[in-house]
């Protein structure tokens, strides 16, 4: 059942697009920065990715920007000197920008195996941008996070994903004014039916919307081009 035209739903959709658009736009800029560097090289190396830091550093250092982490994650086996590599930067609790140091040796204790993680796998396999989360990012920032990622292609092949992280609490801050202004109970949910934010205490962030066939069918409006929708909770 689709959610019919309503100014309330429009406002919530707009708020979602603003915050998501901000992160995806940064991801697109990162993709555009690495593409030519990778296209020019048959056997690229880590040093070909230096443009990423120059691009994301100022964004992450600016506390008015919502992103708290961003970068490029190389396709497994792409780089000659590091088969697994994250050219990723994050804002630490003191607001300083730090390089994420992961171990690229699969036998090492700190090895960061991203080949099974949705923010990498989904854009690689679908060719589309993806929103992962809300999830507990225990491998990296240990924060409750949303990750926005987009596939990067160079010379006709998949070379990795560019992406950005925004803290769940920041997304919530951004969505709440529109949600609170609505006259009905609404939630923003991801492709798994997991709630990003809502204006109901009985449907909180992180909960799954009931998939029980006995529960009422809820009116939904998908948000264009994103695995996100606005749902009328109807109660």
């Amino acid at each position, binding site marked *: 059942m689709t959610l019919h035209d309503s100014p309330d739903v429009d406002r919530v959709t707009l708020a979602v697009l603003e915050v998501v658009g901000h992160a995806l736009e940064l991801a697109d800029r990162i993709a555009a920065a690495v593409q030519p560097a990778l296209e020019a090289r048959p056997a690229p190396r880590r040093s070909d990715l230096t443009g990423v830091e120059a691009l994301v550093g100022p964004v992450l250092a600016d506390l008015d920007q919502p992103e708290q982490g961003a970068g490029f994650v190389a396709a497994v086996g792409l780089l000659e000197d590091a088969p697994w590599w994250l050219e990723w930067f994050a804002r630490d609790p003191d607001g300083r920008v730090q390089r994420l140091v992961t171990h690229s040796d699969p036998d090492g*204790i700190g090895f960061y195996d991203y080949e*099974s993680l949705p923010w990498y796998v989904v854009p690689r396999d679908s060719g589309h941008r993806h929103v992962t989360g809300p*999830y*507990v990012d*225990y491998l990296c920032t240990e*924060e409750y996070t949303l990750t926005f990622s987009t596939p990067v292609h160079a010379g006709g092949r998949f070379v990795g994903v560019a992406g950005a992280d925004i803290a769940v609490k920041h997304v919530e801050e951004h969505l709440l004014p529109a949600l609170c202004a609505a006259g009905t109970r609404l939630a923003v949910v991801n492709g798994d*039916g*997991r709630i990003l934010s809502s204006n109901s205490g009985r449907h909180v*962030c992180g909960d*799954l919307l009931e998939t029980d066939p006995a529960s009422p069918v809820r009116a939904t409006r998908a948000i264009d081009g994103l695995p996100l929708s606005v749902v009328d909770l109807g109660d």
Partner: protein
Amino acid sequence: MAVQFYGRASAAVFSPLESKSRSELVSRRLTDAIALGLLPDAEQLPGETDLAGIFGVSTVTVREALSVLRAEGLIETRRGRGGGSFVRTPEGGVVELARRRLDGFSLSELRDLGDVYAAISGASAALAARRSSAEDLDRLRRVADTLATATAPDARRRADAHFHVEVAAAAQSPQLYHEEVRLQAEFGTLLWIAFGDDSSHEQMVRSCRAVVDSIANRDPRAAREAAEQRVADSTARLIDYRLNRDRR
């Protein structure tokens, strides 16, 4: 100083913020990291000023903590160029370190730690049963498989720790995740002294599958029970181990 009696409930408000000294907390944290194998043998620790910055304490506090570690033979400090503090895993490895720590606990303290760990694991599993997506379940099953096929004690320990972390993440709770990690450092290392052999491994795998199955069945009550039972079994095994050592 006269202490005003504010009644029972407010007594909690006016109790000390942290019963251990800052330097004890720092030396405990570093000892746990060595016991967990996160700081491997011969690894160089950051300098005193850096450590003070990382932990948010004074360099005096760091110096006190390092001297405790030095006295226990867990670090070695070299002077001059290329000097600094280096990790020295005791002979007999991390198990020996964990045994040393085990001796510092009374049986009632171990029981109490087990109760808290059971509460955290149980709550995580119950929430995971409500909140896991199909993807979360896949991941839980994969980690359970890794545990089942692991043969070396160290690989078994790592897979088990990973499983606990995945359940807390599937609960969508950063706070439960942090408690889980804290308890793994404080208690998980001890639990593993009494584990790793084939019979305990089988029990571990069985209980792991029981947790995954009840999460898959979306049965929070069964998930909580299975997770609590799993920790209770491990705690009982550890207490038995400790008792057997004392008898010798």
